[in-house]
């Protein structure tokens, strides 16, 4: 396998798919999505092969052989090369990327009806960009991939998004571009400084690590990189693009944005900030830790009152990603293990939550929490997935969300118990905002249904509705229910009959929502994530096995 460029294959298969779609005749309807499916599936398969063959303890340094490295020197004069390689931090994130890209393609199969060709081209380009970011070990190459993924994402939001999409796309683009331009300055500065020290021109990040950079230089260049990554994470207070981008983006773009793109911030910090500028890391760490704890609580509190489901999930992302930056900058192995786990778990869980919101949006064309109610009776399978991912997201032990957040909290306790208290108390608010939302959307009754007679919290208005329908419940009299407590799993059909025309069968109105339970394709997108969130909750060990040697290499700089 040494000779087969598996990293390039994983990265560029989606690009090949995009090119194929580009050259397909315009009339072919089903072919673009087929091409997207095949190439992203192949990419996913290759990434799993890479995962299986990956040796976590293999060396990862400039003068040693990097596992799966692929290196073609472009120009020795200016030190430019095509240099791809992975360590234990990149590998899990790459598999996450290919898997969620595949899920996004499956999701988009039927749901994208406008400009299908262009849509799939954008998705595939985005995938290539994201994968490249995780593999590039040459700063210039890294920067190309970094910018490459920006454009398709902005287009996905701006073209296929919902009502306020252009504002969101521009905001996303400007925020990220602002960050990445600063990073470009940082890259050039590092390149130049290394050249001044050694007389060698290189952009190889493994080699640049050996440079010695002055304290002031480190401080400012660290900041330049940090801002780029902080915007991506997003850290408080540069997070405000996220709710807009998430809300307006089409579902698949939201999924990829949340599940993969946000992780680039965490990955970038680990790969560049921590390894290139250890002195500055120590200086900056307390500030970043403080901002992370603020983000954790701030995101959860702001999520509490959001009326729009996607915005709510977006703010919950701010909260969860706070754990990632916190875990990284505690400079503690347990914390880093935790932030890796949070990154993966957030990928599964938030990805799934966006899919779930997308499914209901496809049916009802609204994301307002207040528009829904009682979906569990109409869509039991859908409701079951909601409950599962809700609990995974609020960190129920046994599901993936818990392990990472708890490890980060343990590491935080060692840093400062009071901060650990603030950090860990977020589980109260997480339960509050998510359970409250699910309660309003999934449980209770729909707006077109009668209230339950057994409900002891009925309003006067609801009592009147019941009385009008002839179902009363006084003290010991009134129509008894046939069973204990009443049958609650399905809506009694009689309840559906409109009062003015009692004999007419209720027909799904052509413009109104059609409440079918999950289609098999929808199930296909959720099922792997459900399996993943359970498996990684019960057996998180392999993640630590893969990532820990890489973290230990980083932490060796801080001994």
């Amino acid at each position, binding site marked *: 396998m040494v000779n087969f460029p598996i990293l390039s294959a994983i990265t560029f298969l989606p690009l090949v798919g995009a090119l194929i779609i580009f050259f397909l005749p315009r009339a072919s309807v089903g072919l673009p999505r087929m091409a997207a499916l095949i190439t992203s599936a192949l990419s996913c398969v290759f990434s799993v092969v890479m995962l299986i063959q990956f040796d976590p303890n293999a060396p990862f340094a400039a003068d040693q052989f990097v596992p799966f490295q692929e290196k073609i020197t472009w120009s020795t004069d200016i030190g430019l090369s095509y240099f791809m390689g992975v360590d234990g931090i990149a590998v899990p994130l790459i598999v996450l990327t290919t898997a969620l890209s595949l899920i996004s393609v499956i999701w988009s199969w039927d749901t994208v009806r406008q400009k299908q060709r262009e849509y799939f081209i954008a998705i595939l380009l985005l995938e290539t960009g994201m994968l490249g970011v995780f593999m590039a070990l040459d700063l210039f190459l890294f920067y190309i991939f970094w910018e490459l993924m920006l454009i398709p994402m902005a287009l996905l939001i701006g073209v296929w998004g919902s009502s306020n999409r252009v504002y969101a796309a521009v905001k996303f683009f*400007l925020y990220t571009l602002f960050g990445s331009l600063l990073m470009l300055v940082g890259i050039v500065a590092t390149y*130049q400084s290394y050249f001044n020290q050694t007389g060698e021109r290189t952009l190889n990040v493994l080699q640049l690590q050996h440079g010695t950079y002055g304290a002031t230089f480190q401080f400012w260049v660290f900041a330049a990189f940090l801002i780029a990554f902080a915007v991506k994470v997003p850290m408080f207070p540069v*997070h*405000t693009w996220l709710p807009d981008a998430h809300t307006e983006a089409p579902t698949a773009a939201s999924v990829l944005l949340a599940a993969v793109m946000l992780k680039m911030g965490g990955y970038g910090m680990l790969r560049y900030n921590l390894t290139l500028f250890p002195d500055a890391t120590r200086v900056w760490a307390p500030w970043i830790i403080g901002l992370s704890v603020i983000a954790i609580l*701030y995101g959860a*509190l702001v999520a*509490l*009152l*959001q009326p729009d489901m996607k915005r709510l999930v977006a703010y919950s992302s701010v909260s969860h990603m706070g754990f990632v930056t916190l875990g990284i900058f505690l400079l503690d*192995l347990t914390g880093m*293990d935790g932030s890796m*786990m949070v990154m993966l778990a957030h990928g599964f869980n938030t990805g799934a939550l966006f899919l779930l919101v997308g499914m209901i949006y496809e049916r009802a064309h609204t994301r307002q929490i207040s528009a829904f109610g009682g979906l*569990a*009776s109409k869509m*039991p399978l859908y409701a079951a997935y909601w*409950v599962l991912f809700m609990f995974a997201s609020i960190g*129920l*032990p*046994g599901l993936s969300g*818990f*392990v990472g957040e*708890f*490890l980060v*909290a*343990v590491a935080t*306790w060692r840093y400062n*118990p009071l901060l*650990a208290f603030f950090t*860990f*108390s977020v*589980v*109260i608010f997480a*339960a*509050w905002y998510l*359970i409250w939302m699910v*309660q309003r959307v999934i449980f209770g009754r729909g707006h077109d249904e009668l*209230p339950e007679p057994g*409900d002891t*919290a*009925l309003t006067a208005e609801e009592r009147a509705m019941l009385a009008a329908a002839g179902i009363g419940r006084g*003290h*010991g*009299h009134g129509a*008894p*229910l*046939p*069973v*204990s*407590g*009443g*049958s*609650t*799993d*399905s809506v009694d059909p009689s309840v559906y009959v409109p009062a003015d025309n009692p004999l007419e069968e209720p027909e799904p109105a052509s413009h109104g929502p059609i409440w079918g339970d999950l289609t098999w394709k929808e199930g296909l997108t959720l099922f792997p994530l459900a399996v993943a969130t359970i498996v990684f909750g019960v*057996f*998180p*060990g392999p993640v*630590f*096995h893969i990532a*820990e040697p890489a973290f230990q290499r980083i932490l060796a700089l801080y001994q």
Partner: protein
Amino acid sequence: MEHYLFLIPLFPLLAFAINILFGRAFIREQAAWIAAPAVFISWLLSLAVLREVSTTGEPLFQHLFTWIPAGPFVVEANLYVDQLTAVMLMVVTTVSFLVHVYSVGYMRGDGGFYRFFAYLPLFVFSMLMLVLADNFLLLFVFWEGVGLCSYLLIGFWFRRRSAIMAARKAFVVNRIGDVGFGLAIMWIFTAFGTLNFQDVFAAAPSATVGTLTGISLLLVLGACGKSAQFPLHVWLPDAMEGPTPVSALIHAATMVTAGIYLVARAHPIVELAPTAMVVIAVIGGFTAFMAATIGMVQNDIKRVIAYSTLSQLGYMALALGVGAWTAAIFHLMTHAFFKALLFLGSGSVIHGMHEEQDIRVMGGLRKYMPVTFWTFLIASFANAGVIPFSGFWSKDEIILSTWVAEIQPLGKILTVVAIVTAFFTALYMFRVVFLVFTGKERFDPNAVRPHESPPSMTVPLVLLAIPSLLIGFVGFPPESGIFHRFLAPVFNVVHHEVVQSTQLTIAALSTVAAVSGVAIAYLAYGSRVIDTAALARRHSAIYSFLYDKWRWDEFYGRVFVQPFTNLARWLWKVVDEGIIDGTVNGVAIGIGAISQRLRHVQTGLVTNYALAIAFGMVLMLGIYLGLFSNFFR
């Protein structure tokens, strides 16, 4: 012979998996045939474990796998059975199995029948794992796991807003306790470098009192959440929105005792922290008293029993606080049987009365449902602590331990509180008995035809009545019964050298309190010599204060929920949309204004562009040559 431990929780887990995956499509009404036998097998296995532990006296242990190997933070998934666990296993599996059988009748015809028989074994699995766990984090996992099941089962009738609101309240309030428990775990790990019970307990004496007190208080916060002790007690009464078998199993017999179990399990830490012990004792005594006063005026049969549960859990906490670990577990066991019986009995009443729960419109049900009446009566005597019913022995031991506790004069004060509470207990319990089962029918006999429940419901009642009546004798004589000898390896029993006369006086006092409670209940609700309505009118301030449950819900709403909601709104509207986004958009508008002027550069003339490009290239080349090359040097 230790490798079979994993089978105990495995069977309920399999039952859950089968019913949740195939229940809706295939199994449907047969779901109980999967769940109940699975729990029965667990019961048999628990019996075997109990036998083994009692014959060998050695703890059993089984390694499953390494759950979290994150650097130095290693958590194993191991099962561990000592005498304490063996007792808990028996209590959990016995009550669980009987509740499963009962539910077959109670839940028949419910649309969510398969769901019910999926959640119920999931709960049994979680609860068994909770008591089998050999380290703090694994215990925490299933601590949350039983919380999940509680949420799912309180909100079982999810179309009722009341039910789903109660479920959320239960989960969120419990989460406050969980934060305490979680932080305790972090502290334990930081202080001891391990989370394994035996290792931590072995190292505990070497830690500072400050550390031990901190850890203990955080553990107590966790216990307050799960065991519904003040100030986190508010969720339990609302939890009665769940189906009655759930109230019996989860919110009376097993899950709510997890907090008591936790503190008892962690007693080697807690007993080294005297401050924490005082806090537990006061919390327990206060909760016992407060809940009993509320229980006296509630009209919903399940709510009365729910407040009774709060009150009895308060007794257990009191026992923990005075170091009477065995007495706490003893009361936990007797309470599990008689309180499960009370709930199942009230479920039988509700079932027979067509979903009526208001005791004001019942009456005279004795002749309609004799089995329910007699079993309910036994449980009521046990709850009231009347000799020789099981509750008497355990409660008497707690009161005695409190009287002779090291913390004085607090011990004497708490003893008085406990005896007064015992009086209230008998009063509210027999208020229910007289109002429900005796006197005239206060419902319309033509509309409601009360009937005895089917055998699947009455047989469990009878089977629970036996331990409610007799199990107290395992703790006889006080502090040296079979039960105490069995648990002696776990709790190094402090054998109180109490004079016989003190023992008898305490026993007599608590009996007098209980009997007078029954008598007054008879005068007020049986023979109606005392006019309770007039009493309530005369002391309407007190009455409504009690009826409104001391108004804790309103207080928390004003002091916590509302301020946090306001803070959230302020952060969202002012900080997020106002300050941060305002700045971002402001910058964007500013740049927009500048580019409006720069727009004039865009002339559309190719020659202008060419000039600009050429100029730019010269500039860039110049910068490069000047700053980054040796060209000019």
